[in-house]
């Protein structure tokens, strides 16, 4: 079974880490990542940019707001990783998806670090 692990934390505190502290955490994580990769379990992993870089398309209103998706009524049901030319392009892609699947919202958040990981198509349920 493939599982998605969604990482939550106190953003202000994490963004306050010094480079050394950040590097230390990443180094510790890398040990775990490496083991998981050796076992063929590691799919794509990524670190998102801060929420200050996010915009959100509210689908029904066709409205783009600055900032992350902040409502708590809806649940996170899926995600895409898409290669877009720029933010405008990303928004037009989001609108196209919204046409096919109205309701809810798409938060568009640039990715800071993307690691491809192993091909896991064989592991799909």
């Amino acid at each position, binding site marked *: 079974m493939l599982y998605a692990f969604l990482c939550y934390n*106190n953003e*202000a*505190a994490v963004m*306050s880490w010094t480079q050394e*502290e950040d590097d230390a955490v990443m180094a510790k994580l890398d040990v775990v990542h490496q083991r998981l990769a050796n076992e063929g379990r590691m799919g794509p992993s990524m670190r998102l*940019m801060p929420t200050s*870089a996010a*915009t959100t398309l509210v689908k029904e209103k066709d409205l783009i707001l600055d900032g992350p998706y902040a409502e708590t009524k809806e649940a996170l049901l899926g995600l895409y990783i898409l290669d877009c030319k720029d*933010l405008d392009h990303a928004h037009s892609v989001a609108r196209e998806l919204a046409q096919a699947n109205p309701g809810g919202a798409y938060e568009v958040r640039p990715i800071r670090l993307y690691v491809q990981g192993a091909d896991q198509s064989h592991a799909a349920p």
Partner: protein
Amino acid sequence: MTDIAWIDAAISSARPQAVGALLRYFRDLDLAEEAFQEACLRALRNWPKNGPPRDPAAWLIFVGRNAALDQVRRRAKQTALPDEDQISDLDDAEGAVAEAIDNSDYRDDVLRLLFTCCHPDLPATQQIALALRIVSGLSVKQIAKAFLVSEAAMEQRITRAKRKIGEGNVPFEAPGPIERAERLAAVMAMIYLVFNEGYSAYGGEAEARGPLCDEAIRLTRLLLRLYPSEPELMGLLALMLLQHARSAARFDTNGAIVLLEDQIRALWQRDKINEGLALLDKAIRHQQRGAYQVQAAIAALHARAATAADTDWTQIELLYRALEEMQPSPVVTLNRAVAVSKAQGPEAALALIAPLADRLDGYFYFHGVRGAFLSQLNRNAEARDAYGRAIALAQTPAEAAHIRQHLDKLQADSAAAKK
């Protein structure tokens, strides 16, 4: 990351909100700071045992407020009680506080706290020192080190600045939209000064001052979370990220300045550049021109060029022209002239800066740039004079050494031509 390091990060990132809210309750900076200190002491005792709270800022505000109220009551036995309406009452529990202090309270609290440090009677350096002490929580020792003064001198400077603020009227009512915009503009200018204190440092100073850049970026990120739709805030954050991304390439191993065109671009930090570009993209959607956005757009064009030769100087020149309209200044014109020299040649650039000679005669960079234009035109004697003026006006050994290189090159070139 150890527990203590984590608690430290949680406390320091919650500090602006917490001190800002405590200032709103007590209307007294010293009392707000004392209350926060007390809350931090209790957090250090409590959090390792019980784990950090979900909302560290709300916890610190609640505990700090209780502690300070005790203090006020104890003092009140000696002096008269302060007016009832000066101190909010205290029957709400922590959970209720966390809900009550929503985003809109926080944002005005943080803005008020920062704006308090921008008192117009305070010189810029005192505004910065005060903000670093009160808002960022840097120790007097750290700030003194960054400003190359003794700890005692900095302590005195901060105390004096605080007294000045105490005399003035800190605005406590919630600001209207126009006031809010004005406060935000003043605060952005002050934060950019903090950044430049760090950015302009070189050599041995850079280590002590470098953290000022990170702090300015952190404060702007915080403001942007609180004011998510301000394009100029996005522009300012983008500008600082794009500039700071180059920090590892700006000096060589001897501490000498490396000009943008000579920098090793592989040393630029891609993640900072990408975040800056993403923020600029966000800002431009609003179609509200602003000086920080234009400067960020200029920095973005440099960041996007794979090599110095790929730089889009025509576009950069247009952006400087736009900046000149928004903020007319001879220094902006001088920067535009550099773009003109790249796009149209040194002759046009020299003509552009000729009228600035009187106003910028005492400015190191003016003579350095003029020397470069003249030497590109092979007017070597004049170039030597201009470089000589620049060296005389240099404020740092790195600046002087940089011009000295140009002079040496000029000398070598003319010697080679004679052979």
